[in-house]
């Protein structure tokens, strides 16, 4: 689909909350736990509709995760709904030990992730979560790009046998996939038509898939072919599709709402370098500096995470290669 066709959806957080309301109707083992975060997590309607399936812990993220692990050990399907920044910093040890190491299939929902909180600043940004969790064994990591991926991820999470972290933003997202798209945790999705050769592979995750997709349209206007991937799963990481995209591309731009260290870009670079697939590459994300103040959009633009910015980066990379 191209940008003319893309219509606006709701925030992935809303898609998450709607899906969960639907699923919980027939599954009383589904629980939502929250830390004074039901509003931000859009689960107030859930709490009102299923008061027996909603557990409030108050402002205590460590306890939130610990209690949720205990609930899960008793057979509950627990969705922990709290800001990504607090879950993966304040409660990181609980995620590491109580959930991942102890292997309870808790569904950790990091809400308003990345720089979603915009002007609230670094205390509220989660730009380290993908790095930290990728370095902790036994927790799958899913970062949905749009409402479709979100709904599918939540449905999959309910029955997922392992701990899982799902990272969601709070801004309305364009609809990027048609509803018949195959979604599977661990399998990347290609948004652009399959070709023999691409000028650039735009490998993105989460809320940066949309600008990557729109960048591919700008590049197409200049006669350049892109392979846009939504790598919604950081773990399991889809080596096969990434390798294939890279092999068939002249250059690679990775895009993420995360520090340029330790997230998707690092993963792609590490994998390709070890696989012997050598291509000019740029990791676009939030650079290792004091993050600029602004809304999510302003921060994205500032760091070139926009259709324009990404197209520009791709062009520079290609020029550099051909010069």
């Amino acid at each position: 689909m191209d940008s003319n066709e893309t219509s606006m959806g709701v925030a992935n957080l809303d898609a998450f909350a709607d899906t969960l309301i639907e699923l919980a109707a027939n599954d009383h083992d589904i629980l939502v736990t929250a830390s004074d975060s039901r509003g931000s997590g859009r689960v107030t309607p859930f709490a009102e509709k299923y008061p027996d399936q909603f557990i409030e812990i108050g402002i205590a993220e460590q306890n939130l995760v610990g209690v949720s692990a205990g609930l899960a050990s008793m057979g509950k399907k627990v969705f922990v709904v709290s800001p990504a920044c607090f879950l993966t910093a304040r409660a990181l040890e609980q995620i590491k030990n109580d959930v991942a190491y102890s292997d309870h299939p808790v569904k950790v929902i990091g809400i308003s992730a990345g720089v979603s909180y915009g002007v609230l600043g670094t205390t509220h940004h989660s730009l380290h979560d993908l790095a930290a969790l990728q370095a902790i064994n036994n927790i799958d990591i899913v970062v949905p790009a749009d409402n479709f991926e979100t709904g599918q991820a939540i449905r999959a999470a309910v029955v997922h046998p392992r701990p899982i972290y799902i990272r969601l933003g709070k801004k309305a997202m364009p609809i990027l996939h048609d509803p018949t798209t195959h979604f599977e945790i661990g399998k990347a999705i290609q948004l652009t038509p399959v070709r023999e050769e691409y000028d650039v592979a735009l490998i993105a995750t989460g809320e940066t898939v949309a600008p990557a997709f729109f960048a591919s349209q700008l590049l197409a206007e200049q006669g350049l072919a892109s392979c846009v991937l939504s790598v919604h799963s950081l773990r399991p990481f889809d080596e096969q599709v990434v390798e294939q995209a890279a092999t068939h591309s002249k250059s690679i731009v990775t895009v993420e709402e995360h520090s340029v260290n330790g997230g998707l870009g690092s993963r792609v670079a590490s994998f390709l370098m070890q696989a012997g697939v050598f291509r000019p590459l740029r990791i676009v994300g939030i650079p290792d500096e004091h993050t600029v103040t602004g809304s999510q959009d302003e921060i994205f633009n500032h760091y070139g995470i926009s259709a324009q910015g990404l197209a520009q980066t791709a062009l520079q990379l290609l020029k550099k290669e051909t010069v």
Partner: protein
Amino acid sequence: MALLNFITHRNKYSNSEMMTHYPNTTDHYRALQAKSLLYRKTLLKLIYSAKAGHTGGSLSCVDLLNVLYNHVMDITPQNFTQMNRDHYIHSKGHAVEALYAVLADKGFFPWEALETVGKYGSNFVGHPTRDIPGIEQNTGALGHGLAFAVGMALAAKKDGLTNRIFTIMGDGELVEGSIWEASASAAHYKLDNLVAIVDRNTLQISGQTEDVMAMEPLEDKFKAFGYAVCHVDGNDIAALVDLFDQLPFEKGKPNLVLAHTTKGKGISFIEDKAPWHHKVPSETEFEIALRELGLAENDLEVVDGLE
């Protein structure tokens, strides 16, 4: 600019003069009350302009900040680089608009600087940061301020300083275990130079604190953790002045003030309403709010026959 016009149009008590050691006269209280009204107007304007901010919690703690900065604490732009002055940590960092108003009034930065709050590239983000003159620590994640304040108080004791370290926490914030870790250490090290203040407005984002996660009896908890505990009406200027004049409450014990406040204090339709935690006033709401504050200013001056 609208905001600048507004904030430069201050009431007659606006000044950045330190009011410590003023005699506790009616005049003094009235001057402080007028400042509170100015701060309320300013913070509402900030939130209204930025279309974001924490309305309820800023309004509930602004009288506390007022009395601390204008009566109790020895902190000025002039002595800010010195160690042996008082120190303040805004643990409930989301209520930053109240702090911005007070710091501007104290002369830490020009009022105009506030026009950039929440804007792209501004240092004035939605929580306190050390990028702002007058702010000593980046807060915003709840439950961090007290430990930091304990560290400062400990350093002050080690260096034989005579200053005090103040911090204001939310009541919802008290559920964070880090508060209790810090409390234990404050008592262990007998930090009677530490003044921990709870903005006990009984509300947090999701509703009544006791419904969300009950923490009463708070006095028992704090006493058991080794504090000298005092209750006060946290929106009553005179009561606050009187209480803080008695610091330290007990030699060798950290001080804990349970400041009973009204969330959204000062604006009738905002008071004691959970959704106003971070609701932004509409144009009409903003105008009514200003009118209410204007009436209060008139009252203050009429009643006391100052005009």
